[in-house]
């Protein structure tokens, strides 16, 4: 047989097997329904729903002064960051409310607050913060410090003016912030992107893993092995079919939800995005393929893959910034394709950059994919010899 003929046969076999996999997938109605839910409604609810910046932190106030100044200070704690949960007659009442949850902090303003401020004395207010959720507590305290600092600075300015200084200006640094790539700090962009990536990861690992183990469990893989197909021709079509399905779902999520509803921009090349998404799916599928070769049934493969996927989802930088990770986690996550793909996805969509800046991430993903796949393929072959 000539080389070109062999190639045709090879391709045809792959095509036939891919079609078989697709048919099998599409016949599983609950699974397909769930796939659609995951890439549409779920992306919408998450993109819309998650707010990582401080929002609605319940504030209780114990105002012993009840003066113009105290009311002015309280009014600075406003939405969207804070939610006024009511006034207390005594600070101790606040602790009971914090115990119960719902409210997050108690602001305690002392008597003679206004008097002290007007007469030029120093005074202080107390803030009690529930830190059972420590980042939120710290964030709330940070905002409160900013508010009180601003209030204090304005006081100094008015006092300065009152004492008849020649110039009303004082030396100070005015902070001017420009947020790039997302001027309005619209959280739906990042949250919907990260959720899409989360869904791609789960499906890319589990679909081929379950499909491969199923054949083993049921014994149908024996039939395939006695057919003219090589192990690669058995394994690849599964990955190809799953990749096509997930790519389709990604397109639905992107063009059906993220663009029209959240107006996520596509500042870079769509073709490059889908090309690298395909690479990501295949690389991630490598984890599933590998897991399928060391397990015997679907329960095992499910637990094995989830053991690995959960840390990927939480520590790859799609949930909390990579900057928060301890050094050993950062080294560990070098093995997670998702860690690179989040930079690629946000880079292409929000920053509008291309391969000239993303080549190292793309190469790392490729290297991971090739090694995971190569290893999986080797194990898969060996199993049946």
């Amino acid at each position: 047989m000539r080389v070109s003929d062999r190639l045709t046969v090879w391709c045809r076999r792959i095509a036939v097997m891919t079609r078989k996999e697709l048919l099998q997938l599409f016949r599983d109605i609950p699974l397909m329904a769930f796939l659609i839910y995951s890439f549409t409604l779920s992306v919408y609810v998450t993109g819309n729903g998650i707010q990582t910046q401080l929002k609605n932190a319940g504030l209780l106030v114990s105002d012993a002064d009840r003066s113009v100044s105290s009311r002015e200070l309280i009014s600075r704690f406003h939405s969207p960051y804070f939610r006024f949960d009511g006034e207390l007659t005594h600070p101790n009442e606040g602790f009971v409310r914090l115990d119960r949850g719902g409210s997050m902090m108690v602001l305690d303003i002392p008597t003679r607050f206004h008097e002290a401020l007007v007469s030029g004395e120093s005074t202080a207010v107390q803030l009690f913060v529930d830190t059972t959720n420590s980042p939120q507590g710290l964030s709330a305290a940070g905002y409160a410090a900013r508010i009180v600092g601003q209030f204090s600075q304005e006081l100094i300015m008015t006092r300065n003016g009152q004492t008849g200084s020649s110039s009303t200006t004082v030396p100070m640094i005015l902070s001017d912030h420009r947020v790039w790539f997302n001027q309005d700090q619209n959280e739906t962009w990042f949250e919907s992107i990260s959720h899409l990536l989360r869904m791609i990861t789960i499906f890319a690992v589990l679909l081929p893993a379950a499909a491969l183990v199923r054949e083993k469990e049921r014994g149908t893989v024996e039939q395939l092995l006695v057919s003219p197909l090589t192990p690669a021709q058995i394994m690849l079509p599964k990955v190809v079919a799953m990749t096509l399905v997930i790519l389709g779902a990604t397109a639905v999520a992107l063009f059906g939800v993220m663009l029209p509803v959240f107006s996520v921009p596509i500042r870079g090349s769509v073709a490059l995005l889908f090309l690298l998404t395909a690479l990501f799916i295949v690389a991630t599928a490598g984890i599933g393929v590998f897991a399928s070769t060391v397990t015997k049934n679907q329960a095992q493969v499910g637990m094995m893959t989830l053991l690995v996927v959960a840390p990927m989802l939480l520590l790859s930088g799609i949930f909390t910034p990579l900057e928060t990770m301890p050094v050993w986690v950062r080294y560990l996550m070098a093995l997670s394709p998702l860690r690179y793909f989040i930079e690629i996805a946000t880079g292409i969509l929000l920053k509008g950059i291309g391969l000239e800046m993303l080549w190292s991430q793309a190469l790392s993903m490729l290297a991971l994919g090739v090694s995971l796949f190569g290893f999986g393929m080797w194990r898969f072959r060996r199993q049946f010899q």
Partner: protein
Amino acid sequence: MNVRRVAAVAFKEWREVTRDRIFLLLAFCMPAVWMFVFGYGLVLDVENISFVVVDRDHSSLSRDYLYRFYQSRYFSFQGELAGEGEADAWLKSGTARAVIIVPEKFQERLLSGQPADVQTLIDGTFPLRADITKGYTIAINNAYNVDLLADHLARTRGLSRDEALRRTHPLGLEVRYLYNEEVRSTWSTVPALIMFSLMVSSPLLTALGVVREKETGSIYNIYSATVSRMEFLVGKLVPYVMISLINVVVLWLMAVLLFAVPFKGSLLLFLASSILFILTSTGIGLTVSLLVSTQQAALIITVVVSTVPTILFSGLIVPVSSLSQAAQFQAHLFPGMYYTNIVRGTFLKNVGPAVLWPDVLALAVYAAVLGTIGYRLFTKRPSV
């Protein structure tokens, strides 16, 4: 319900589990491994934000100002740029998350008592990080402003430095942290990780139980047996509830001994609500198993249903109060949120049933509803 028949089903299920060594090992290892990895790895303090500077002034005061950023553990200095034009490439490639631009005449203006604008360009792709970066720069600027002002007052008014400093602090804020006095990240994550580990691993234990028998056909043995629907479902659940119970104890011990998180509340309340929580989480797996007809579908649906809401909507990191209404609704649909309240309440707050009863009740109702759904879904006379 006949206890002997339940025991028979449970015993058969238990044998199947113990014979599958890999499954058994994973069932016990998974939660513990996660607790270990996330307990040490899921740190939430943002530090080392990489930044570059453009110093147009090159004065001693601008260097003094920028030094505060170099020194800060929140920032990590990457280099100085010749001009603003280079900022684009640094931010786009992600090698810097912020660019601080000190204007010309920075020193001149400040020394003559005028304000100076310092511009910070921030990479906004990750809004949380952008927000934190902004907060840190404002904090550094504010602290610097107070010093500038004190110097200014001391110079122009002829005050002593102490007196000047006192005048620049007319209003202070004293913050006291409650329940987690030293604001340790582990104290707040580790209790919630008990919830996470159970909520993600337990459904998977039961998810394939029924659908596997459907796929292999062994379910017909059950159809033709005398065992009733309820007996079968309870028997199916018992071994996995036991595994998860052992896991609860292991996770609790890890939290208290390994991570040294204080347990201030009632152990009885914790254990009782943990049992309810395990019933709901294993129940979710069983319900999925009854709904679908292939193991592949059961596996994927269970993984998505158990991990996604648990990560996003259960108060693990993002508090439920800051979610949108649709997301809050979804949060209330999953048991994770209630159990997070109970775990944090019993670990850190020392609150009892008087405060936590709504959460415990919600879990109980949840378990009852799942039981009813399971009972309704399972039929011994399938139409096909």
